[in-house]
């Protein structure tokens, strides 16, 4: 079965490739290229796949999942300027795609413990734009 936990964080970012001229960044990213940054209330849904443990009846203890997500995502992303404060976004453009991949990379090692494994990371940048990442393999 799948189990999903939802977390939220608020952060600012600039979407621009430093290697490109300003006009090209404006063309590619529009308002999101504003060099002063802008922010979003991000919503993240982390989905695990696994069978409930026969003793505990749980795929993964949700208290533990909450602690992992807080420690590895919320604590470092919430109320931060991603480009300036949250590596690798000093080098990687913090698009919603790259944010989802980075969250996957951060949490996957702690969450792939039998019987549970990480299935997907969904990140809403706004209610009208979201991405789903399933790891590199798919």
């Amino acid at each position: 079965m799948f189990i999903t936990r939802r977390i939220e964080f608020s952060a600012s970012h600039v979407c621009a490739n430093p290697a490109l001229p300003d006009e090209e960044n404006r063309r590619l990213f529009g308002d999101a290229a504003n060099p002063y940054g802008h922010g979003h209330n991000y919503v993240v849904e982390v989905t695990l796949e696994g069978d409930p443990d026969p003793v505990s009846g749980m795929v993964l203890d949700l208290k533990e999942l909450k602690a992992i997500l807080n420690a590895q995502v919320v604590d470092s992303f919430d109320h931060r300027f991603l480009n300036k404060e949250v590596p690798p976004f000093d080098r990687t453009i913090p698009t919603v795609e790259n944010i989802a991949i980075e969250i996957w990379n951060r949490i996957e090692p702690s969450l792939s413990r039998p019987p549970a494994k990480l299935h997907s990371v969904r990140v809403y940048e706004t209610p009208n734009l979201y991405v789903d990442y399933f790891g590199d393999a798919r």
Partner: protein
Amino acid sequence: MIRVTRRYEFSASHRLHAAGLSDEENWRLYGKCNNPFGHGHNYVLEVSVRGPVDVRSGRAVDPAELDRLVGERVIQAFDHKNLNEQIEAFDRVVPTTENLGLLIHARLKQAWPSVFSGPWPQLEKVRIAETERNIFEVNETHSRQKS
């Protein structure tokens, strides 16, 4: 590979009435949805695309390009319209949300290369909610089975 989903809304009216059935049969089949004067919905459309993340832009799709395609092919065509009277495809088929989903998928698929000329991103699925309680999803396989 990543999936990017964009959410849109449009409002339109329709009437469910199958040409091959009698008035009584239509009423029995569609109930209130068969009201001859029609009725409307705030449709919520989610368009999902799939592709690799481009190194230069950090994106799998330019949302502005997707908005332009969906805007031109779907929103401008359907928003504040009477689907039965003003959308040609519904001369022949009943504008159920099943058929509306298939039509939207086909329209996006047909215009796709004019906006996205490379191999990526690809259209993965469209999901359309007629109300919060009735939701329909069409992917490439469904679309091909239909045609």
